[in-house]
């Protein structure tokens, strides 16, 4: 089976002009997060394709730039057809497409989701090295580290609490990027304190009965749905008014990017407002 695939690949490769037009490797990305790292780092013309999701401004910070880049469906077929030199992907999705890339001789880089802010410069460097632009990567990673150091605040046990409340009543737990963003902005994660074991869903009733100091509404996804309309429930509006409420676009921390630090800034401002309003 493998030899058949290899044979087909060889036949395919024979059909295309052999001399590459670019000195830098041609890169395809199969995951929203690697899409955006690629858009940040790659030279124009280096990108073979990014996923269609990168053009959705609800999920991607770099949706405007994504419109200039070619789009590739994250399937094995499109990887075989476009035979990139480097394939970037996540560790959970599009496994078959990445396997096809490997068999086609491409360098395949699988990035796990960023779990903390310190993961971000590491991931920037991984992608930068893979696509042959280490200097640009170093530049971005340095800038990130400098900005992070200027933003971070000391943690204390008396920090205000914040809950990240997403569609369908899901609350963000420990070990995720938003949790680390909260910690860097000087908030304790409400979900961790409440120790609501197994379940990651909090009912509105529970949230109102034992309220966090700040309710962060994590809006994601375009269109209307029951799951999203829950975040606009008048009970939440009434219980978390003024400085106790913050709308934060999910795209900022959906992927670990330099722009994720903007969410730290928003949260620090929110904390400042909270302290101002406190009697």
């Amino acid at each position, binding site marked *: 089976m493998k030899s058949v695939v290899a044979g087909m690949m060889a036949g395919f490769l024979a059909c295309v002009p052999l001399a590459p037009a670019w000195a830098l490797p041609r890169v395809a990305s199969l995951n929203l997060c690697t899409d955006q790292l690629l858009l940040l780092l790659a030279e124009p013309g280096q990108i073979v394709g990014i996923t269609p999701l990168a053009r959705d401004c609800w999920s991607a910070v770099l949706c405007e730039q994504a419109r200039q880049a070619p789009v590739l469906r994250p399937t094995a077929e499109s990887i075989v057809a476009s035979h990139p030199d480097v394939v970037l992907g996540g560790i959970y999705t599009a496994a078959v497409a990445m396997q096809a890339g490997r068999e086609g001789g491409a360098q395949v880089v699988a990035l796990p989701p960023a779990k903390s802010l310190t993961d971000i410069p590491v991931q920037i460097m991984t992608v930068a090295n893979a696509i042959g632009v280490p200097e640009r990567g170093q530049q971005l990673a340095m800038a990130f580290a400098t900005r992070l150091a200027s933003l971070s605040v000391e943690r204390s046990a008396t920090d205000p609490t914040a809950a990240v409340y997403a*569609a*369908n009543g899901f609350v963000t737990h420990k070990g995720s990027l938003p949790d680390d963003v909260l910690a860097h902005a000087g908030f304790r994660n409400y979900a961790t304190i409440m120790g609501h074991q197994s*379940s990651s*869903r909090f*009912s*509105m*009733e*529970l949230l*109102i*009965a*034992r*309220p966090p100091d700040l309710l962060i509404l994590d809006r*994601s*996804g*375009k*269109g*209307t*749905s*029951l*799951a*999203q309309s*829950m975040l606009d*429930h*008048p*009970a939440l509006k*009434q*219980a978390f008014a003024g400085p106790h409420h913050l709308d934060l676009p999910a795209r900022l921390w959906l992927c670990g990017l330099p722009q994720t630090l903007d969410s730290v800034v928003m949260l620090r401002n929110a904390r400042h407002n909270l302290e101002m309003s406190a009697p």
Partner: protein
Amino acid sequence: MKPAHQTMLLNVMLLAGVMGLFVTSLMWGETRIMFSHALADLLAGRHTAGAIIVERLRLPRTLLAILVGGTLGLSGAVLQGYLRNPLADPGILGVSGGAALGAVSVFYTGLMQVSIAALPLGGLTGALCAAAVLMGLVGRGGTLVLLLAGAALSSFAAALTTLVLNLVPSPYASFEIMHWLMGSLTDRTFTHVWICLPGVVCGTLLMLSSGRALDALTLGEDVAASLGFQLHGPRGVQTRIVLGAALAVGSCVAVSGAIGFVGLVVPHLLRPLVGFQPSRLLLPSFLGGSLLLLLADMVVRLVAVGPELQLGVLTALVGAPVFFARVIMLKRTVS
């Protein structure tokens, strides 16, 4: 005891049950709050956590359970009386399914942003279309034709609902199919109460106005016509019943999703208690439906294992055995 007194007593008991459950439903929930304090805060206009929970979360939900349950029970009783068929129910006949399709088409496509009234109108249109198709398909056909047409219509409406949910932009939409096919009152607001109230009031009045005609219809259409009841035509009994049921069921499904079996099981259980007279069955069916749905909604809230159960699952657990029993009885009478 005279049947009239008996019906009166039944109504009073059902009403007392509804009121009792209404209060319990406000007091009882996932979190324990001091109800007396919450009520005092509420009346004093203080926005404490308890007051918000009672006023904004539990009250709309409880009111909706009464409205939706009552509507489904009443329309079941009216449809059963009019079609002279104990298996008629808005859910089984596909009227609820059509309403869900209409509501979904409005809600997810953003038409609702134009006007809040679009949602019940969508539900009403869907319910009316389903009822019209049903009447057209069945005509004077018997029970079997009616049930077949209902089954076909409701599965077709469910398939189209799924299709619409797959096509709309929201990434969450396709996971919300359960809400529309099974029904739920989770996290409803007062807006939803106002959305469904006008349709429920008008529809209920239209359906209640047909009580005497339903009595006459038990003797057959010709007799009813000779007794002076106008059956067809723009002001006839048929129009009033179909329009009333579509209005009420359409606006309810638009906010709660299609909850099945209430309209089937409630009239069935209450019929022997009112002396088998269709007109006497109407009010008890409304109250009985409210009672059943209030009860189901409380169970849903208290049996909290992970995500909340859908209301329709519970009503189906109660209603399906009744449906099976009716089918077995039907088989005996046919064979």
